């Protein structure tokens, strides 16, 4: 059965390319124009997505905390986040007088750029991908780790001791947890034999890796969830912000739009991490299939692949949001113990198990 609604991005892009080439003769200008159009579309999508994630977070928090959440501005309070954004836009951007001005202004840009770049290779639906780079998984993990430079920069340039402490914590935290994230990604790469996101999605045509990969993949899925929550500085690993200890950590001195950029980066990172988890463990845009139940499978095929992708991603976003609203924060030494004494050794052993599994062909 054909999907209900399938946006064929590639054919749309090809037509657009053809039309633009007809209008403009210079191929370089065409390329630049296409890049700009793609960038603007992506930017608009990401900002809207962050609005939605912000709204979702407040509603989830309200649900867990036995309260209503936003319910005044717009239908069901859905414009609350818009109102907040407008407020942040009009707020005075305060720069501390003794701060390092250049780095202070540059830091939020780096953080948000790193977050946005990581969106590029994500497959939003079948044939709907901005850039299917051959080293997709590696690209995402390397680009997203640039953010730590921005955070360190923010903490250092603010000329505030709380900010500095927060930045130093983030340095230790992000660098450590990168390892576990990387190793859990590698376990899938070993099974797939490719770093390309589209290949990883296609390899799950006959079943998601979470189900095909036995217990080792289940372990790496759990480790990925924990480690990536730590990597994007979300509670219970939000030591870099740690409101109750450091009054806001690295972004203590930021206000107005520059603060909003950190917030934007946080939600984009949340989306990227969930999207990667959905892509490599839960089949990305692949529908859910059950063995030889052809009727069931065809109904699943009927659901558009973009819905499959967003559904899986938002499910993982929901899980990560629940972490934030139920757990207390770890202490810095406990945080590092968790990574170096538990997660990393387990991931290493797990990687070996997956390798053996891949060589022997024990997976489905």
């Amino acid at each position: 059965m054909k999907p209900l609604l399938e946006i064929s991005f590639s054919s749309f892009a090809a037509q657009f390319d053809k039309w633009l080439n007809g209008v403009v003769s210079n191929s370089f200008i065409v390329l630049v124009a296409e890049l700009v159009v793609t960038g603007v579309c992506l930017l608009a999508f990401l900002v809207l997505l962050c609005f939605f994630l912000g709204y979702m977070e407040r509603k989830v928090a309200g649900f867990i905390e036995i309260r209503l959440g936003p319910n005044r501005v717009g239908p069901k309070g859905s414009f609350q986040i818009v109102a907040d954004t407008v407020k942040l836009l009009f707020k005075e951007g305060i720069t501390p007088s003794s701060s390092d001005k250049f780095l202070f202004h540059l830091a939020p840009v780096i953080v948000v750029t790193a977050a946005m770049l990581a969106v590029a290779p994500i497959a939003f639906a079948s044939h709907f991908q901005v850039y299917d780079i051959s080293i997709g998984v590696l690209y995402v993990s390397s680009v997203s780790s640039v953010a730590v430079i921005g955070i360190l920069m923010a903490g250092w340039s603010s000329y505030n001791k709380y900010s500095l402490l927060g930045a130093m914590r983030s340095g230790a935290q992000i660098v450590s947890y990168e390892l576990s994230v990387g190793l859990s990604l590698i376990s899938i790469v070993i099974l797939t034999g490719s770093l390309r996101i589209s290949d990883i999605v296609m390899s799950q045509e006959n079943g998601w890796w979470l189900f095909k990969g036995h217990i080792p993949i289940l372990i790496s899925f759990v480790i990925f969830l924990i480690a990536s929550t730590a990597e994007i500085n979300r509670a219970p690993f939000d030591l870099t912000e740690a409101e109750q200890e450091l009054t806001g950590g690295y972004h203590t001195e930021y206000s107005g739009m520059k603060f909003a950029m950190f917030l934007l980066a946080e939600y984009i990172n949340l989306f990227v991490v969930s999207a990667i988890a959905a892509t490599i463990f839960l089949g990305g845009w692949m529908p859910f299939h059950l063995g030889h139940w052809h009727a069931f499978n065809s109904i699943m095929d009927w659901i558009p692949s973009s819905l499959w992708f967003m559904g899986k991603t938002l499910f993982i976003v929901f899980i990560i949001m629940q972490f934030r609203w139920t757990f207390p924060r770890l202490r810095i030494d406990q945080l590092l113990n968790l990574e170096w004494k538990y997660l990393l050794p387990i991931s290493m052993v797990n990687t070996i198990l997956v390798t053996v599994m891949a060589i022997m062909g024990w997976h489905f």
Partner: protein
Amino acid sequence: MNLLGEPEVTEEGEFVINIGPQHPSTHGVLHLKVWLDGETIKKVQPHLGYIHRSIEKMSESLSYRNFIYVTSRMDYISAHINNQACALTVEKGLQVEVPARAQVIRLLLAELTRLGSHLLWWGCTGLDLGAVTPFFYAFREREAILDVLEETCGARLTQNFMVPGGIMYDIHPNFQKRVKDVMVQVKSKLKEYDELLSGNVIFQGRVKGVGYLSPEDAISYGVTGPAARASGVSCDVRKWFPYDGYDKVQFEEVLDTGGDSYARYMVRMREMQQSIHIIEQLIDNIPEGEFQAKTKMVIKLPKGEFYQRVETARGELGVFIVSDGGSSPYRIKYRSPNFSNLCALSKMATGAKIGDLIAIMATLDLIIPDIDR
């Protein structure tokens, strides 16, 4: 310069941060100067006086009826118990017998206040450790208690209900029914609290073995209340020096020997159950009769010194009145539990991490206006 007049020296490589007076987890205007080595605390020095309102001096110019109202602003979370302490001291001076009905109602209100205070503390402890949700859960039950107190005396925070000789008015007709409803609610929710926070692995990791206070230190610093009982020091004024008929009700003095933040946490959790136990014994047995003993319009205490201690939710509150025979105290001194408890903070936090300092402060349950007065 610190409080003792010692110069503050910062060595090379030391990182000094000022936590407060404006800080999310000092719950008020406490200022802690913290010397750090990386994340490890080398020294903590509390700086006080940001919310000093000279309540003791003010009381000297207020009559024996009026000075009680000011004390609601000391430990504002347990206002009823502060008032009770003052009323008891004045009654001691007057040698007035408080009617049985007033005594029982005082006890009920004091225990409700203690329960509400511990609920607030539980929520704030979760909040200080980074878990936001417990705060909302605790406030759900605290609201119910505050509603009862509001119906009884008209105020939700700085209640004034206890007067020399008894209580100001008789209780609301709904009082007994509403208190019973609240007790049912709180009892059922205490299990939920344990599931949400007490049993959490991260929470236990954050509080177990953190901020150890030995019994000797607890005694030498004058730490009282749940903080001292968690170190195994039996110091419950309600047991040792019963007042207002605490000797007639059955309850346990909650003791723990851990001495760490987790022990302090568990002592308070168990104290909540004891408070419920006391309330349940009394709520159906409020005797009939007068709610206030007859006192003169203008109270004059005989010349002398009068001291009364009570157990607030945070420890031992002492009220010391020196009277010259006039209509207002000649000199008054409050022995506030939070001041002594804060003094032990430096001892407990040295060698811990910044996050631990917040956890220790949370489990000491400091109310800053009570420290400065």
